[in-house]
């Protein structure tokens, strides 16, 4: 069965690379389990599904990953998101808190993780995030950066 990464990489079951990817069922199933754990966890720690999808779409944009951007966009649209979340998702400027602080953090950690410091965690705390929320947000940011790299790598394999 095709998954999000196949779709993002443009892989169809007829292709040899689709079958080669299945030689590692732990990776295929593991990535899917992780996707569910950061986007639709049973306990969302107070970070709603629409916020998670909006951030994921924005990070796909920052990674230049159009297929994943569209995937997240479609999932987000199904949840009737607010104007603020739509702007956030599309890569726009966000002014309301705590969205603004969360968004700046996601942008920095996606684009330049090397620049992250303790101060940036304190900013999340000042914006009102609890420790479980800081961890859940960190895992979401890190997951999307994993997912875009797997999709990018597979796309490069198809075109090389």
């Amino acid at each position, binding site marked *: 069965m095709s998954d999000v990464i196949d779709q993002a990489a443009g892989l169809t079951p007829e292709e*040899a*690379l689709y079958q*080669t*990817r299945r*030689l*590692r069922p*732990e*990776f295929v199933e*593991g*990535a899917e*389990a*992780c996707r*569910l*754990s*950061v986007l639709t*966890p*049973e*306990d969302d*720690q107070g970070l709603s599904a629409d916020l998670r999808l909006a951030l994921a779409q924005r990070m796909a944009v*920052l*990674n*230049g*990953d159009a297929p994943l951007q569209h995937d997240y966009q479609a999932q987000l649209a199904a949840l009737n998101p607010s104007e603020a979340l739509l702007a956030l998702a599309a890569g726009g400027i966000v002014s309301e808190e705590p969205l603004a602080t969360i968004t700046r953090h996601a942008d920095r*950690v*996606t*684009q*330049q*993780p*090397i*620049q*992250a410091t*303790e101060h*940036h*965690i*304190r900013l999340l*705390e000042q914006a009102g995030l609890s*420790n*479980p929320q*800081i*961890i*859940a947000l*960190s*895992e*979401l*940011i*890190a*997951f999307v*950066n*994993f*997912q*875009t*790299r*797997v999709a*990018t*790598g*597979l796309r*490069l*394999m198809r*075109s*090389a």
Partner: protein
Amino acid sequence: MIPSINLKPLHWHPYITPVDVEQATPAQLDAMKVTPSNKKISEYVRTLVHDPESYTARTGLFNAIMYVEGGLDRADRELGALGASIVNGCRYCAVVHARRHAQLAESDAVVSAIYFDRADVLGERDAAIYHFARRLSVTPSEATPDDIAALRAVGMNDQEIIDLIHAIAIFGWANRLMHVLGHADLNK
């Protein structure tokens, strides 16, 4: 002649308070695999288990990518992890995986060359892996089909390249936890 690098193991210290095992929820205890004979849980685990669902899912995927049998040599996976960790600025992960590479390769020549900024002396295979790891780790990715062609030219098959992509990508994940949520130094 490039000197041999001496990389001492680092200790990681979180910026937020880890979960206290005595006060952990059933889901957190389950994720940490706490048992009467296993009560000493690292700060790293206790920090990330604030969100037990993502902790459990990621740990399973991470272990598969770095340790699953067959396919790409484990040393090559460590080299991919090292390239990602340098780009992402995770000193802790870089040292852990540089040391592991040296153990598995039974030589510190590759990691010494990298730490002394002499990647130009790497052999063809190591160079292909390292440069791909670096370019795929940048946001947005700077990797190109030529990088894949270079991996194929040194004899890597598609399954091995898929293994490598995952090793690099999972450090795009791990580095964004370890470097963002804490700092590393020589002090316990």
